[in-house]
């Protein structure tokens, strides 16, 4: 949690809220890998709830926000435009 606005400073803090470009990646990761001791055990509703909770902890959505297939893709993360694609690669040393 935290770190929003710190990426260009001498002490960048990279979290879901400050660094991740897409909220849907959070859904994907929780669904495939969590909980660490029993992955693939959560229902889609539960994955949406966990995603909503993590986004709330990071101050991205409000406490009453409902995340589902329509609302989650609408969430714009603070670092949405923070990545530069290197594919195809440009010439470099």
């Amino acid at each position, binding site marked *: 949690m935290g770190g929003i606005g710190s990426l260009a400073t001498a002490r960048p803090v990279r979290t879901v809220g400050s660094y991740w470009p897409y909220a849907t990646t959070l859904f994907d990761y929780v669904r495939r890998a969590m909980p660490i001791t029993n992955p693939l055990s959560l229902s889609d509703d539960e994955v949406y709830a966990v995603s909503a909770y993590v986004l709330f902890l990071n101050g991205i959505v409000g406490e009453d926000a409902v995340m589902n297939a329509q609302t989650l893709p609408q969430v714009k993360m603070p670092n949405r435009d923070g*990545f530069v694609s290197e594919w195809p690669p440009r010439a470099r040393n």
Partner: protein
Amino acid sequence: MDRKPRGDSPSRDVRDKAAKKSRRGFLKQGAALVTGAASAGLAQGADSTTAAQALAGHPWERVYGAGFTGYGQPSRFEQPVMRHIGKPYGDLAPGSGSALAPIEALEGIITPSGLHNDRSHSGTPDIDPKQHQLLLHGLVQRPLAFSMQALWRYPMTTRTHFLECSGNSARALAPQPAQVPAGAMHGNIACSEWTGVPLRVLLEEAGLMPQAKWILAEGADSAHMSRSIPVEKALDDAMLALYQNGERLRPEQGYPVRLLLPGFEGNMNVKWLRRLKATEEPTHTKDETSKYTDPLPDGRSLQFTFEMGVKSVITKPSSTMKLPRTGFYEISGIAWSGAGRIRRVEVSADGGVTWADAALTGEERPKALVRFRLPWEWTGKEAVLQSRATDEKGRVQPARKAWLAQFAPDVRYHNNSIVSWAVGTDGSVKNVYV
């Protein structure tokens, strides 16, 4: 260390002519040094007393030897040669982290399968090959599912390639230089002979649709680690590897099938491959956004930096070792590039002030390790050993400070900067930052 100390440089003749010397001329010089060293007393003279001792008959010569085993193991006297294991979450997640190859103890270019670097996100799954399937679907004309038995019948190819984790040498970015063996810092690299089915063959059978520009590769580990692969690489030299160094893949290397993308960062060479899904856009998985991205000083980050850069490291002598006495030593190390072949490796003994070409031994294969060697006379003075590789595209391994200047302070990936080992007057070899 801020200062580059004057110390022993490679033979004065070599340094003076380094700029113009051909490799053949340099090897002759090397041979001369070897001859000189041999007469300097590396071997003990075998007088009749020494000969009698050597032939007296040790205990192992007086008893019948051990019987045959089904799967051979190293000598018990080599037990200390093991992978360096790092588990950042401790026993909470004992399979999340890395087991690094002990490159300081290895020679040649092939990493023994049991010592190959192993980076995993949720440990090694125990996969039954009779039940495991590889699904190929998404933007294809014919979605397909392959059993291992089916995959095994496709035409195969054999290639020798390195696999390097993008986070290799991240430990060398710590504020203070760690005094641990070379492998504990730079050992997330290994090189094997891989045999498997070219991915192109399966993609042609499934029939990629024209709008398919990316392929999501997903593993069957509990983390279901997944990465987006550009279709150009998938159709180029990508392989579904089934064999490693002649035998079936080890479990920690992806048994029964892994994706092999020669020259691309290790994370993308998905182990325990269970799915390839052709898509129009990249999936932007956790491991290509949150991780494996390169932060810049201005707050932005580079994404999709797939190709591993040109790199080398001296493995012998290296940090924590000690030179027992002055005299001849053969500097030995490994070099590689994700872009292709290594063209040259230079070695310095004075922290980068002067350089001489090392000899590259063995076949120069693209996107594989090459072993370099250079004879060196240590006269007892302080020295700082470095190696600098150049690949066939003309890219040169960068100095540490120049590389660091490109990134934000918390950069962790793609560290291919020059490695420095300081030799003290007592012969101790230490990790230093130059």
